[in-house]
């Protein structure tokens, strides 16, 4: 569990994505994905869980702010904006 999280972060930093797995930040506006894991630490992770970002949740990127960051996501019926600092800690798998 721990190890895969670390792996994801490393891969992510290098901009390489595992098969179908990428960070939420890279999700194109208009497309949807399923949350695989959230690797923020401590309280940050709990806050993201609070918003419903648990593994298995479907999210859709609905729009960027004028300067590109933050990005708004539709999560369980509400639209929530996340900065890239948060969205890079969330690994997702795109769905079609």
């Amino acid at each position, binding site marked *: 569990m721990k190890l895969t999280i670390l792996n994801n972060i490393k891969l992510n930093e290098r901009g390489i994505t595992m098969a179908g797995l990428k960070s939420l930040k890279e999700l194109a506006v208009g497309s949807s994905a399923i949350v695989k894991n959230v690797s923020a630490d401590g309280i940050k992770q709990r806050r993201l869980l609070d918003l419903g970002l648990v593994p*298995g949740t479907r999210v859709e990127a609905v*729009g960027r702010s004028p*300067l590109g960051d933050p990005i708004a996501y539709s999560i369980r019926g509400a*639209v929530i904006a996340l*900065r890239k600092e948060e969205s890079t800690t969330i690994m997702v798998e795109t769905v079609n």
Partner: protein
Amino acid sequence: MSSSTSLQSLIREARNITGSKQNEIRDSIVNTIYQEAGNIAAETVTNEKNKVDWDRKIDQIITSRIWGFPIMFGVLTLILWLTITGANYPSALLANGLFWIEDQLTNIFISMNAPSWLHGFMILGVYRSLAWVVSVMLPPMAIFFPLFTLLEDLGYLPRIAFNLDRFFKSAGAHGKQALTMSMGFGCNAAGIIACRIIESPRERLIAALTNNFVPCNGRFPTLIALATIFMGGMVVSFSSAVATLSVAGLVVLGIAITLAVSFLLSKTLLKGIPSSFTLELPPYRKPQVGQVIVRSVLDRTIFVLSRAMIIAAPAGGIVWVLANTMIGDTSVLATIAGWLDPFAKQMGLDGFILMAFICGLPANEIVFPILIMSYVSGGAMIELDSMEALRQLLVDQHGWTWLTALCTMLFTLCHWPCGTTLYTMQREQQSWYWTVLAAVIPTAVGIILCIVVNHLVRGLGLV
């Protein structure tokens, strides 16, 4: 009864049971609850037909790369324009009415053979400053507050925060600072209380320390009056449009200063990296227009106005006394103004203006009325019931230029917060250090800004 030791042992017990699986268990618990909620919702909510998602369509425009910022500026300008043009006529009407009452009151004093100092104190001091505060403040507030509340109920404010967040992040601040600034438009004390929505103490402090760079409702009337007389006066045919744009420009300048000061704070006194930021963009809702108007007029307007009047009444009396107590052949008021004059001149102001700002510490609303009072008391009496009369007083009798007006407007935007705001700061932060800083920072910015602008304009020979 549970003792503290056995409570602590529960934590250990739980750790023993879960071992290393704690995270897994947490994810699983949260997941199950959300799943259950999803299942129940799926069973109980039916969507009659797939309607167009208007919210998303609106957001695509309102937060778009091209339209996001122009729309924000447009909304700001529209609100200011409605406030400025809408307030003009009722303001004049109120002033006429209130000065007519002043004449009647004067007649009563005369018929009762009241001593002239009593008439001076009560009518020329107390009553006149009240009349000014009411006629200058009431109409803009009664227009601005409902408009702003409509915007708030519609759900536009979180979109502003969304659009501007990138700037705040670069400044090391929190995106919700845009929301606390929006509250500051109504009242900076309310803005500082609103800072509670920012979780991280560092970013909350930044937001609180810079809230004063948003002109509150007590300062808007001053800005509007000066913009109408001077900026609008330069281009007569579009006067209210020009006045509107100059106030809007000043608000944008205030936002720029907020970002710059936030940046400096987060690089010096309040070092740190931006904390996490999540912001919900709620669905747009149709505001309850009638209710909004009643609520904002009754609750906000009357509240703010009565607070201003409570402070204006004694302040007006005191200023009259100071203006009519002589040391040698100059009044106390003129003497104090004389002391301030050399420094004020550096800032493009004069001693009376700076003194009015100082007297305005209890409430910004009274700065302009006090200034006018101290200009007229003792001097020739004129009927100040129109903008034209005001222009004559400032320009012909006291030598104002557009530069004086500009510097006064800049200093209105950037100087110490009013007493209520400082008191709120102290209560929220429980620290004199930060409270003093909340006054020092905007004052320093204002002084520097005025001196630079004054010398630059004069150096270039523009006045």
